[in-house]
């Protein structure tokens, strides 16, 4: 196996003349790239673009609003992954704008790190209703599917905002001007779903593509691969994370996903509906579907419902159209301490990652 330094040397030896943009679609990849300082280490002609790799960032604003209202107005305990607590919804400042604020106002909201905790909290709740608000991509939804298949208590229901990553990339590739020339595909999504899911990038769109792990050497190997594919006009899906990503992925996890969750057209915050990109409960799990068992608390004509916060460019960041530092709010009105947009809230948001890696100025 070659080291990060060796891969870097090989990349520098490539006859790159024209600029090339390489998109990643995983917050974990972006984090490794930023923390290892790969942008500074690579030739200037290579532009690394963070893409739609943050499930918290694109979680529908209406779903977060509904979760807040359920926690405030229904006799429930609401559990959700910790990242979701600080994501603001679009209501005026006098109103409760996040799950964190709802919790401070007395709502029973508990951050969890695993679906197992949701089950444990429901079992200990003495019959009180527990709602598990789920935002996440395939890697997170597979454990949720496992939780459902193993059996959950009657008092546990799910508000599912699960999303699939590849349809977002397909949407970008189908657009008139994709903001990238080559793709680094997400290693842990492929671990679960199989590398084959990304074959369409090569076959249908003729874009170079490689699946990467999360260490700098794996990421650089994948970058080297897509650069060579680009230069030599040869395209193939290169699995650069073969230690973990196996053909077919985790077959049982895929099977459980199919059994418990169905693929639906679904909105992405600030972006709109992406066909066949959402995961919702299968009808067999209707009795655990929080959407069916609680009233919808949406106000008529709530301003900016479904949008990113006014003035926030998170949607453009998620689509790779701009870099975090190109947002007018970055580092000014929007910092991790007082975030405006979800990309500055989540550990997987590009803005948060760039800030944490020391990029403090626009």
């Amino acid at each position, binding site marked *: 196996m070659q080291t990060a330094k060796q891969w870097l040397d090989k990349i520098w030896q490539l006859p790159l003349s024209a600029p090339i943009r390489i998109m990643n679609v*995983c*917050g*974990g990849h972006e*984090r*490794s790239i930023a*923390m*290892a300082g790969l942008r500074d280490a690579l030739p200037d002609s290579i532009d690394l673009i963070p893409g739609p*790799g943050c*499930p*918290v960032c694109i979680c529908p604003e209406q779903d977060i609003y509904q979760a807040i209202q359920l926690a405030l107005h229904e006799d429930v305990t609401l559990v959700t*992954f910790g*990242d979701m607590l600080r994501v603001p919804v679009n209501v005026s400042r006098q109103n409760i704008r996040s799950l964190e604020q709802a919790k401070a106002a007395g709502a029973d909201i508990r951050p969890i*790190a*695993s*679906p*197992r*905790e949701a089950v444990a909290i429901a079992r200990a709740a003495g019959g009180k209703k527990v709602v598990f608000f789920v935002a*996440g*991509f395939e*890697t*997170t939804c*597979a*454990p949720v599917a*496992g*939780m459902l*298949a*193993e059996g959950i208590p009657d008092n546990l229901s799910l508000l599912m905002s699960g999303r699939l990553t590849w349809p977002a990339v397909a949407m970008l590739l189908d657009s008139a001007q994709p903001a990238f020339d080559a793709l680094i595909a*997400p290693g*842990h*999504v492929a*671990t*679960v779903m199989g590398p084959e899911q990304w074959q369409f990038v090569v076959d249908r769109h003729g874009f170079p593509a490689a699946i990467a*792990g*999360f*260490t*700098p*050497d794996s990421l650089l190997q994948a970058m080297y691969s897509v650069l060579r594919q680009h230069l030599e006009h040869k395209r193939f899906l290169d699995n650069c994370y073969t*230690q*973990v990503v*196996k053909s077919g992925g*985790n*077959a*049982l*996890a895929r099977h*459980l996903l199919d059994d418990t969750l169905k693929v639906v057209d679904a909105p992405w915050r600030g972006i709109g509906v992406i066909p066949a990109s959402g995961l919702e409960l299968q009808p067999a799990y209707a009795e655990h579907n929080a959407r069916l068992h609680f009233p919808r608390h949406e106000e008529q004509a709530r301003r900016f419902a479904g949008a990113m916060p006014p003035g926030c460019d998170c949607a453009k960041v998620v689509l790779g159209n701009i870099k975090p530092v190109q947002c007018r709010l970055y580092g000014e009105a929007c910092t991790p301490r007082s975030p405006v947009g979800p990309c500055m809230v989540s*550990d*997987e948001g590009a803005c948060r990652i760039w800030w*944490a890696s020391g990029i403090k100025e626009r």
Partner: protein
Amino acid sequence: MCLAIPMQIASISGHTARCAIKGVERDASLFLLQDETVKVGDYVLIHVGYAIQIISEQQAHSTWDLLDQMPDA
């Protein structure tokens, strides 16, 4: 949320494995690996409390090195 963490299995009871990483112990579900042969001593990749894949010791160590370098992963 997608950065899974490698841990080594210390003991197994049903679908639950006691896993360790650098002295920290945690329970994780083996439910998604039922079709695999998973045994004490194996390294697994854990995401939100569920093992999603068996990995090699070498792969586990390279990911631990990466996690050590991150300020607040």
